[in-house]
Every structure is written in structure tokens, then in C-alpha cells.
């Protein structure tokens, strides 16, 4: 049997995007993207276990510019999902649910993920540049 077709809420297209809703859907988006990254980790570990030739091959794939771009995206996504995940854990424990606090923690999550992503890539670039 089917219930009467009633208007559904929320109609996403009539809502103005808010920081809270954008961060929420970004958490899901980065989660899905990171799941793909987990499969690349599996590929890299299998290449490492298969020997020097396949390892060099995998390093070349990851070192190519699309590979580096994806890697940058995965690092940024991981820091974001990590920081926002901690925000979610506080909510689960019943803290920080006031509107003002959710906005403050939202901005903090964005700031922390940008700072950590940039810092990681500066260190990575220095290590690559140093020929380590």
C-alpha cells in the first residue's frame, strides 16, 4: 500500500546553504572519497609486497601529477573528516549542540583542516626537494 503523497521536507533546493549543512554534507562526501583512498592504500601495499618493480610502478603512478592531485585531495579530506569527526563525537556525548557553539566548532574544523593540510604539504615538499 502507498501512503498519500505529502510534501516532503527538507526541500534542499529552496534552502540557503548554511555552514552547518555544508559541513555536514562535506563530511559524507569526504567519507566516500576517503573510502576510495583506502582502496589505493591496498593497491600500494600489494605493490610493495610484490617486489621492487611493481613498487616503482606504483610510486610512478602516485608521483604523476593526477596522482599527486588526488593525494593532496586525500590528505585534505582526511584532516577534514578527522577534525569534523571529533566534532561529531562531542555531539554524540551531548556537548557543543548550542547553535553558537556549532558555528564556532565548524569554523575551527575548517581552519584546522586547512592549516594541517598546508603544513603537511610544506613538509612533504621540503622532503622531496631535499632529495630524501
Amino acid at each position, binding site marked *: 500500500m502507498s501512503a498519500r503523497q505529502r510534501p516532503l521536507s527538507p526541500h534542499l533546493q529552496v534552502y540557503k546553504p548554511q555552514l552547518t549543512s555544508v559541513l555536514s554534507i562535506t563530511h559524507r562526501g569526504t567519507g*566516500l572519497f576517503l*573510502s576510495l583512498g583506502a582502496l589505493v592504500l*591496498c593497491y600500494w*601495499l600489494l605493490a*610493495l609486497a610484490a617486489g*621492487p618493480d611493481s*613498487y616503482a610502478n606504483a610510486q610512478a603512478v602516485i608521483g604523476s601529477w593526477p596522482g599527486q592531485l588526488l593525494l593532496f585531495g586525500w*590528505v585534505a579530506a582526511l584532516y577534514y573528516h578527522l577534525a569534523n569527526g571529533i566534532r561529531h563525537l562531542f555531539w554524540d556525548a551531548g556537548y557543543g549542540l548550542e547553535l553558537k557553539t556549532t558555528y564556532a566548532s565548524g569554523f575551527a574544523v575548517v581552519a584546522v583542516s586547512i592549516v594541517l593540510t598546508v603544513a603537511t604539504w610544506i613538509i*612533504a615538499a621540503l622532503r622531496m626537494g631535499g632529495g*630524501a
Partner: protein
Amino acid sequence: MSLRSPLGRARGLGSAKSGLHHWIAQRLTAIALVPLSLWFIVTLVCLIGSDHATAVERLQSPLTATLLILFIAALFHHAQLGVQVVIEDYVHGHWQKLTSLVVVKFIAVFAALASIIAVLKVSLGL
């Protein structure tokens, strides 16, 4: 055709009894992944530019291998639980939903096991 309302059909059936376990597992793996993923990024940055021999040597430390296996297990478990929720929310056809849930679970178990065996092979020097 049933004349009962959706509410009438759902009432009294109780929950599916497995939602709480999913919720707790998702949080526990999340908590475990906080230190593990930070450790993983540091390890990766330290491995930048290293050749095969250096990477193998790094994984032969029992502590590194242990942390990496823990990271893999928590990561794939957490990823599967998360993708499951997204599928349950957005995939509406019964068979499409069931198929994608099973496929995601199989991929997660396969990739996790393959990754762990790769780490064991390298770390044990097999």
C-alpha cells in the same frame, strides 16, 4: 492490498535490533582512527621518496606493522559502516540497495584482508 496504515504496520514490531551495534562500532572505529590516522600520515611523510628496500625495512619494525594492521582494520571497518549508511539513505530500490550493500561489504573485507596479508608478507620478510 492491506488497509492498515504504515504506522499501524510498524507499531509493536520494535527496532531491527542491530542499529545500536552499528552506531557503537562506527564510533569505536572513529575513536581508534584519530591517533592511527595521524600516525599513518606521519609515517607516509617519512616514507616520501624512499625506494623499495627502505620502505620494506620500515615495515619490518614490529611496532610499525602492528599499527599499520590496526589502521587497516579500523579504516575498512569504518569505511564500510559509513558507506552503508549513505547507501541506506540514498539508494531506494530494494534490490539495488541490497546488492550495493553486499558488494560494498565484500570489497571492504577483501581489500582489508589483502592489505593485511601484504603487510604481513613484507614485515615477516616472506
